[in-house]
């Protein structure tokens, strides 16, 4: 299994796209931190990277990579290796490279300029978001054999989580504003990994406002160590569940 991971990892490194992704993340983060003497603007830039760029690149790159390496997968399948092992190694190789790219590109500037609770939280959440969207890529690529359809599904799911979901939540909030929906809204955030990530960072970044009356309910849930644990568990579930579904599908797939 280690050898397959190594082969995939090296293959991804040879493919210059991940390298370019790392460099772009690095340029964005270093320059936005260097722009002003306080780290606030840099943190906001990295926040939008985590909520926007990281999911997009992770899901698109992983999906396309999986489709392109279908022949390689078929070759592996002809060997006496378990299907589970192959799929898991593919996942580990891909997610390792995406996490590494994020860590080198955005993580190091974070640790240099904001080595506090905000920075650490962003680093962890960014890595988790990379994992989540690689897992979603596995799911979307296994759903259909058609490459363009698969990439379409990937883009659609990114669009949904990054944009549409918040629009729907905003709509619900104002439609049902006469009802006590705060608690329900906390539950609704569990339905989007990006929202989970964003709220965890918000609690660190905008503590003063979140501690206020509007944030009271969120603080009471997300701000406690139990809430923190639950939201991290939920994020991990967002990695495990899509990947597990794709694994079952891959095992039973007629290739």
């Amino acid at each position, binding site marked *: 299994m280690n050898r397959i991971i190594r082969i995939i990892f090296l293959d991804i490194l040879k493919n210059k796209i991940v390298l370019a992704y790392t460099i772009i993340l690095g340029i964005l983060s270093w320059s936005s931190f260097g722009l002003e003497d306080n780290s606030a603007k840099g943190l906001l830039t990295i926040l939008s990277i985590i909520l926007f760029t990281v999911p997009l690149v992770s899901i698109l790159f992983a999906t396309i990579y999986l489709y392109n390496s279908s022949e390689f997968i078929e070759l592996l399948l002809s060997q006496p290796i378990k299907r589970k092992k192959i799929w898991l190694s593919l996942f580990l190789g891909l997610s390792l490279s995406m996490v590494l790219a994020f860590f080198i590109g955005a993580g190091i500037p974070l640790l240099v300029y904001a080595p506090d609770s905000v920075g650490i939280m962003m680093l962890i959440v960014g890595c988790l978001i990379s994992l989540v969207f690689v897992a979603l890529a596995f799911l979307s690529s296994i759903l259909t054999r058609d490459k363009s359809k698969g990439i379409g599904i990937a883009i659609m799911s990114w669009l949904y989580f990054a944009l549409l979901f918040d629009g729907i939540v905003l709509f619900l909030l104002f439609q049902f504003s006469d009802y006590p929906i705060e608690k329900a809204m906390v539950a609704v955030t569990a339905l989007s990994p990006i929202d989970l990530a964003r709220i965890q960072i918000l609690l660190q970044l905008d503590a*003063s*406002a979140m501690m206020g009356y509007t944030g009271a309910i969120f603080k009471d849930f997300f701000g406690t160590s139990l809430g923190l644990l639950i939201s991290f568990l939920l994020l991990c579930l967002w990695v495990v569940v899509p990947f597990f579904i794709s694994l079952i599908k891959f095992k039973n797939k007629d290739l």
Partner: protein
Amino acid sequence: MKIVLYICLFFSSLLHANVIEVGHNKPIKSIKKAIALAKAGDTVMVYKGLYKEGNIIINKRIVFLGKNVPVLDGQKKYEVLSIKADSVVVDGFKVIKSGYATLEDPCGIKVYNKNYVVIQNNVLDDNFFGIYIQNGSHCIIKNNRLTAYGKEEQSIGNGIHCWKSDSLQIIGNTISGHRDGIYFEFVTNSVIWRNISTRNVRYGLHFMFSNDDAYISNIFKNNGAGVAVMFTKNVKMFNNFFEENWGDAAYGLFLKEISDSYIIGNKFSKNTSGIHMEGTNRIQVEKNVFKANGWGMKILASCSDNVIKNNNFLGNTFDISTNGSLVLNTFNNNYWDKYEGYDLDKNGVGDVPFHPLSLFAVLTERNPSAMLLFRSFMITLLDKSERILPSITPDNFVDNSPLMHSLPL
């Protein structure tokens, strides 16, 4: 000639003051007895030790001096020190454990309707009310340290409580754990200077119906609800620090029905709301720093003719918020770190006006749970378009000359 000499002798005998010493190894062991023996103008010097004498009443014009911090214990039953004479000086005591009663408000040290009293260098620990000036004038409360251990508003009194007084000086005191650190009601022409008021259950400073006062260079930190200034005119608030007042209804500075006042050179950091203004008129808010607050300023639509200029707004979640569309206040020459305009003529003032009120601040004001969506991409997009073409936010809520660089404050 002789007559002049006699007159001089007569006056010098009047000037002569005795020192009456009280201590465990002195002839007089009881403070009450020493006060009974003293004449006006005498000094009662109390040496180190623990004195449990119930309620001590000073009803003569004496200097009441503690040597090496003698302890006056109220045993949780009595008011410790009651001052019922003009020009008394109380210096250098440790006053502990006053009684608790909601009708009489027993205090560590209380002044009853007297003037020119000086209370300085005392330590007050675990009292119901700390120092209470009732209907006094020209009193000085200086360099005292007041500590209490209040958990809820009902079971604890105020640190320095002043009622219906005039020309007081509250200087250099440290107050923590009381209900309100400093409480002013119907107090005029007074100054509150260089005090530190922290971790009080309700307000660091509570200020009502007290005209023509100034508070300068105080620190109000981590109080239950910050500082409240209400129903007052001509207040001067200079160079104070308002920090870390977090909570449901916590404000760095809460202003209600204030007029003709000045808020200059203060620093508001890490509060849920820096300044909350309700029904205020003609206030100058100048040269303040608002840093890392949830809301820099909340200016309700009932405020008018306030001028907000030359302030720095740095790293606040929302710089300004309001609850209506009526804008009767002016914003000028402030630095906003959220300003994204340009300065072609390089005069340090941005060429495009800045709308400090963000769409999302208005949305959360209407529907607080919308805070859930803050900083999401969707909201950022909406905010950006609102800033270019204001539709929901009032378009006259604007700083026409935003600064390009922060002021050195």
